[in-house]
Structure formats: structure tokens, C-alpha cells
């Protein structure tokens, strides 16, 4: 397996009085798509937010591309080369699609060739270029959220439940998009509840429970072992599939 681009060791996060992450050890290999699975409330979203600096870790180390980023300010972490697609999508509803994309291109105007590539992945964005993002459908907003994160090449992409509440046809489009990103050797850490979607994309997998990583393997190994799936993912497995 290739060297890790992201490494979390013994990460704890408190939100108010709640102790959410209780010693997360997670390794994300460079150029691979790692899926983070787990029940609701296991700490998956908190893990992504902690990596992004949106909730500071109370203990432990987070290393990205050889640099310690734990506790650094969110803008600095983003500038280090990490893109973030939150569960809420985070599109700016009052801004047009074009303005959302322009804002995401922090280093200048969006690159024409890259924009073309993004339009190839998500044609709806081209159609609704001048429309306020708030008027897009849920699936289109998710496309915009992902497109915004990749308008400039990123070393690592954190994606939080992109299929949540999204129509199956759009999920198929997303699989294509993530496969394209994989071909481009973008490292992705994907939090997902939809096991079929996760299994179709993932190279490696980590399963969380009660704020800790309880399993790590290749996705192929987990997908092939239904007993292991049942043990790790429990009753929620049916929902995943």
C-alpha cells in the first residue's frame, strides 16, 4: 500500500461536554479512496470536521502530507490542499452557481479546461450557471458542492455522505465522477452510509463505532465478507444496502 497522505493518531474531540472522538487512529493512503463507515453517531462527521479544523482536537496528532495540521485554523488547512464537501453541502444559496465556483477558485479565475472537465462530470451545472444555488435541486446542490471542492486540484478531498437524500440516477453520476477523480489520483476520504455506493468506489475502508476506528481493511475484503459486515455494521446493514 502507498504511503499515507493523512494520518490520525489517538485523536480525541470534545464538543461542549460531549466526548465524541475517543482516540481515532486512521491512515489514508495517497491516491486511494478510503471509505469511513459506521452507524449514525459513531463519529464519522466529527472526524472530517476535526481534520478540517472546524472542531479542534483536544488530544492526538493529525498529519497531512508530512505536516502537523491538528489544531490549525480551517483556512490554513484548506490552503494546505484539502477540499471539503460537508454533509449539508454548504452551497451558498444566494450566490449563483458561477459565483459559487468563482469563490472556490481561490487562486484566480476557474481554469477553462478544468471547468470543461467538471461540466462533463456534472452537465446540470453548466445549464444552471447563472441560477442562484438555492434554487437547485438537492442532487444538483450536491454536484455543485463536489464541483466546488475540485475546481482547483486538491491533494485530499473529504466528502461527507454525498448520497444522502439523493435520487439513484444522480448517485450513478456521482460514481462516475468519483471514478474520474480516482483516475486523476485524487486521494479521497469518503464518509458514507450507502454501502453499495461505498463498495463500488472504495479501495480501503475503516469502520467507526463509539468514536473509535474498530476495523480497517481493503474494501474488497469487507465487501466479500457478509458476516464481517453484519458484525461491524449491525442492524443498519439493511439500510446500507
Amino acid at each position, binding site marked *: 500500500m502507498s504511503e499515507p497522505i493523512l494520518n490520525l493518531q489517538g485523536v480525541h474531540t470534545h464538543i461542549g461536554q460531549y466526548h465524541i472522538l475517543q482516540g481515532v487512529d486512521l491512515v489514508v493512503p495517497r491516491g486511494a479512496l478510503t471509505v469511513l463507515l459506521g452507524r449514525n453517531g459513531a463519529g464519522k462527521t466529527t472526524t472530517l470536521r476535526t481534520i*478540517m479544523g*472546524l472542531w479542534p482536537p483536544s488530544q492526538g496528532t493529525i498529519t497531512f502530507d508530512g505536516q502537523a495540521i491538528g489544531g490549525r*485554523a*480551517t*483556512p490554513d488547512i*484548506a*490552503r494546505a490542499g484539502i477540499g*471539503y464537501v*460537508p454533509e*449539508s453541502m*454548504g452551497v*451558498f*444559496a*444566494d*450566490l*449563483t452557481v*458561477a*459565483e459559487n465556483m*468563482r*469563490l*472556490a477558485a*481561490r487562486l484566480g*479565475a*476557474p*481554469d*477553462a479546461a478544468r*471547468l*470543461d472537465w467538471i*461540466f462533463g462530470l456534472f452537465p446540470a451545472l*453548466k*445549464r*444552471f*450557471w*447563472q*441560477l*442562484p444555488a*438555492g*434554487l437547485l435541486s438537492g442532487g444538483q446542490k450536491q454536484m455543485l458542492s463536489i464541483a*466546488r471542492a475540485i475546481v482547483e486540484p486538491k491533494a485530499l478531498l473529504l466528502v461527507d455522505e454525498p448520497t444522502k437524500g439523493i435520487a439513484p440516477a444522480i448517485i450513478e453520476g456521482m460514481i462516475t465522477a468519483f471514478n474520474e477523480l480516482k483516475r486523476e489520483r485524487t486521494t479521497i476520504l469518503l464518509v458514507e452510509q450507502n454501502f453499495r455506493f461505498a463498495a463500488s468506489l472504495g479501495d480501503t475502508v475503516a469502520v467507526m463505532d463509539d468514536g473509535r476506528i474498530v476495523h480497517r481493511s481493503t474494501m474488497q475484503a469487507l465487501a466479500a465478507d457478509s458476516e464481517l459486515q453484519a458484525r461491524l455494521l449491525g442492524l443498519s446493514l439493511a439500510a446500507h444496502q
Partner: protein
Amino acid sequence: MTTTSILAAADLSKAPRDLLPVLIAPIMVLVALPLVGSPTTWVTLTVAALAMGMMIFVIASGLTLIFGLMDVLNFGHGAFIAIGAYIAMTVLVPLSGWIQSDALTLNLAALLLAVTAAMVGTGLLGWCFERVIVRPVYGQHLKQILITMGGLIVAEQLIHVAWGGDQKPMPLPNGLRGAITIGDFALEKFRLLAVAVGLTVFTVMQLVLNRTKVGLLIRAGVENREMVEALGYRIRQLFVGVFVAGSALAGLGGTMWALYRETLTAAIGGDVMVMVFIVIIIGGLGSVGGCFLGAILVALMANYTGYLAPKIAVASNILLMVAILMWRPQGLYPVARR
């Protein structure tokens, strides 16, 4: 395909515009005409309302952005209004020769100097206020209210110390006294200037907010500052800039307001803040367009009811706010939230 061609080809869909709230102002103006009776009085009241509305807008626009961008309830905004007015007065008094001159250019030069001094002074004060008073209480609304109210009280007392506690005359330049007569209608010159200043500020703000990257960041930050940071932008620096600009605008508005009243006291900021808060609530917290419309509506209501039914004039804007919030609980142009 180039970016330009992509943008041109993709320009397919435009947003439907919500014009309903905008119609309230002309409806209010038209309804007032038969109630007022005399067209000349109606024009005078309407122009006075527009001038007043523009001044309130200039004061309120910065405050609404400050609230929208960082959730900061700055009850100390009145301090910038008062201090701006006092700085302007301090500049205008020694320039009495220019103010009393018949040459309009000298009048306007004096006014420009006073306004510049007021804006620079309140902008610097705003920078200090944000660092010392507001920064320690980000995200703590109750503490924000208490400490910014405290800041307002301290600022008023410092004005007493620096300029004295008595009411001061605010010298209005000669060329801005009197009225321009068009037929039967007399339009006060200073009110026309106030309308021009308000429209200029609104236009510049719209251009900055819609045509520049800083403006995009402000609009995005008002909506979801966490996501702006996740895109790699340091929103705290942006907020300091908006706070300074908002404070400078309050200084400009305070100067205009004091010139309008031709007197000033340390309490001038606190007096106008009730209307300012009504305006930003009616407009939709964080919305500059809503603030502009809200300011016009509040001023129209205050002027018409002040003439038609003085006994309810004091409560009229509260009633207007209640009516609008019953119709649109988030204000006329609510800002989308995460």
C-alpha cells in the same frame, strides 16, 4: 471551449426576482396622497422621508453586514454615529468662513473634509472597538449585548469629557440651506444631497458586493462563514474590514443626521438606533438590499404618520415591523442560512 464561451453558452437560466416587497414603498406613497390631501405637502413629506431613509440606510447598512457576517449584535454602533458627528463638527467649526461663503464649492469642500475626517476617525475607532471589545465575545450574544452597550455608554461619556455635555450647533453650509422650487413644489437642498449620498452608498455597495471577489466573500460569509473558511479564506480579516467600513459609514450617517437636525448631543447615536434596528430587522438581517428598502419604508411611515396622526407616530414603525414580520418572519429579503 474557452471559459468565456462556456460562460456565454451557459447563460440559460436567470433567477426569478422577488419584487413584491419593493412594491410596498410605491403603494405606501400612493395611499398617502389622498390622505395627505395637498400635493405640495405630500411631495415635501415624501422627499423628507426619502432623505431620512437614505441617512438611516447609510447608518444601518454597516450594522446589518456586521450582524450577518459574524452574528455580532453591536449595540455600540450608536457610538460611531455620535463620534462621527462630533468629529465632523470639530472640522466644520474652524472652517466657518468656507461654510458661510456663498461659493458652493467652498461649502462642499468643507463638508467633504468634515465627512472624510468623520469616516477616518470612526473607521479607526471601529478597528479598536472590534479588537478590544467585540473580539473576546464572538459567539456569545448576551455578552455582546452587554459589552457593546457598555461601549456605547463609555463613548457617550467620553464625548462629554472631550466636547462638553451641552447641546452643540451643527453648522450647515450656506449653499445647502433653503430649497429648490419646481412649480409649486419646494425641495430642500440638504435633503436632495442626503438622497444623492444614500443612493451613491447603495450603488457602491451593490457594485462591491456583486462585482468583486471581496463582495462575493462577504455575501457568502453572511450565509455560511464556516464554509468560506473551509474554502481557504480567512474570514476574521474580512470581518475586521467590514467592521471598519460599517463604522465609517455610521460616521458618515451620523454627520448627515446631525446636519439634518442642525444640532447634536452625545445621545444622537442612541436616539437613532431604535430606527436602525427596526430597519435591519424589517430588511432581513444581513441583507443590504433589504436594509435599503426597510430604511425607506420606516422613513415614509414616520413622516406620513407624523403628519397625519402624530399621536401614533412614535408607535408607527413598531406596527410596521410587526406587520412585515407577520407577513415575512425573516424580513423582506432574508439571507439564506446554512
